């Protein structure tokens, strides 16, 4: 009896292990291949059969990307666009999430989702014409403004879910003691909401950082964000995979590291809103 039991437990373990491997392997394989391409020299990258583990690790591909000089300009552009649009998203969205949660304005919450349903391209035609009319094309302003479409709904949804879990008793007690509703929000709810704000910041920054479609329309040579810059480098050096993989890795590496480090918070934030960017 006990023998069949341990045998069954062993079989169960093996089955679970196999299932876990099956589920995680696709992600690992693709990112491992990305690493492999980025750290191999051109000879091995164009070899057939493919070389999986580089015979010696080379940093030439990264050097080629970084030496072009434009990389840091595009990095700065990306940081400014995602940073500013996330900041604006937080300033507007945190109070809004609080208000919607406290007033139980469910219809308003659904309204916020309109921007989640609308394809990014449909904002682009009118806004492109508007920005050209205002002579803003060639600056980062159009990008910062349009990225609010990504950041604001994320912040509102994450904060809404977060404030709903906070008891309102404290705020009510404070107002009875003479605090205004704004003070109750500012000095009681807001400090308690710090973990929620962290999640909202990370998610909205990541989805803004990843956005591509707004950038290909609204940016020029000087104002490109990193995803656009990486895409543009593809057309010219289609065969040299190493530098391309290296620059792709540089763009997405911050996101990957953040995701691994903060997976718990990110998963929590994603499930409260059930959303993704753009």
């Amino acid at each position: 009896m006990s023998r069949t039991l341990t045998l069954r437990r062993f079989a169960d373990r093996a089955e679970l292990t196999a299932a876990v491997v099956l589920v995680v392997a696709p992600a690992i394989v693709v990112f491992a291949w990305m690493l492999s391409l980025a750290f191999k020299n051109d000879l091995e990258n164009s070899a057939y059969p493919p070389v999986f583990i580089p015979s010696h690790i080379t940093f030439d591909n990264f050097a080629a990307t970084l030496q072009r000089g434009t990389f840091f300009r595009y990095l700065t552009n990306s940081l400014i666009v995602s940073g500013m649009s996330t900041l604006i998203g937080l300033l507007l969205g945190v109070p809004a999430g609080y208000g919607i949660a406290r007033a139980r304005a469910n219809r308003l919450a659904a309204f916020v989702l309109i921007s989640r349903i609308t394809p990014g391209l449909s904002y682009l035609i009118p806004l492109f014409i508007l920005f050209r009319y205002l002579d803003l094309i060639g600056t980062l302003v159009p990008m910062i403004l349009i990225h609010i479409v990504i950041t604001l709904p994320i912040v509102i949804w994450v904060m809404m879910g977060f404030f709903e879990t906070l008891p309102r008793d404290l705020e009510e007690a404070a107002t009875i003691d003479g605090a205004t509703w704004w003070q109750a929000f500012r000095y009681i709810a807001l400090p308690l909401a710090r973990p929620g704000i962290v999640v909202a910041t990370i998610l909205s920054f990541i989805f803004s950082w990843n956005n591509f479609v707004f950038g290909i329309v609204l940016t020029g040579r000087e104002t490109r964000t990193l995803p656009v810059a990486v895409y543009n480098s593809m057309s010219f050096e289609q065969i040299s995979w190493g530098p391309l993989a290296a620059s792709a890795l540089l763009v997405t590496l911050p996101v990957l590291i953040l995701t691994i480090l903060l997976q718990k918070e990110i998963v929590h934030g994603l499930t409260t809103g059930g959303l993704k960017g753009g």
Partner: protein
Amino acid sequence: MASVPLSYPDPGRRRLKVGAARYWWFIGPSVVVILSIVLFPWIFTIWMSVQEWSPGGPPSYVGMRNYSELMTSDRFLGSAGRTLYFTALAVIIPLFTGTFSALVFHREFPLRGLLRGIFILPMMATPVAIALVWTMMFHPQLGVLNYVLGLFGLPTSLWVYSADTVIPSLVLVEVWHWTPLVALIVLGGLAALPVEPYEAAKLDGATRWQTFRYITLPLLLPFLVVAAIIRTIDALKTFDTIYVITQGGPGVASETINIHLYLQAFAFHNIGYASALVVVFFAIIVALALVLLYLRQKAKWS
């Protein structure tokens, strides 16, 4: 406490109303911003969709001509067909893979947190970077996918380089990309399941498949419908991966509505026609989302 009046004139209702108004100061600025970012483009788009407008010249009113042109354009109708084909596959397959993944992550095992972090990497990673890696993997001669197929003695494929296989290949990328999102939604559902039915099933000696089929699956159905709605909206809108990997090619074999729209607006500068396309595209998205919402209501009642 002494200052609290003993009776309110009309307790619940009045308080809620006053309360809601108070919160407008918190919500208002966001509503104004969203309205101006969403509403202005909409009004402008609808206006442009009845104009003929190319850069350089002034717009001129053409009535419904853009729409009738759209409905008789083989290129648009073709792109609509491809979009539905792509969307159907890119919704249904992740529902299976995502549910399976969620069932796995619902169990306890060592390093679960770290592995879950790795598991969600595809949906967090920059789509352009992902698309570049897949482009290299799809390469018919030097790509790693054909090499692996060859190892197992399977016939190689032209992947995104042939009109017949380009859409299934792009669906493969999409499934890889978004299985984690479906899994997270289903995991939320699994966490909310009641315990009692499982205890009863165990007492009755139900097999694991029976438990899944007759208890878990019906209880998960509302979550699966939510996942299907979100997935449908996202699949219809897919742009980054298709644009980077194929740009709609070979020929127009992977030109979905969204790609067609981009090319019309920003490569050919047919602003009026592209605006009509936006209106029709949005109508399709809303219609499909409503169908799924209706199914959700039905799933709730039965």
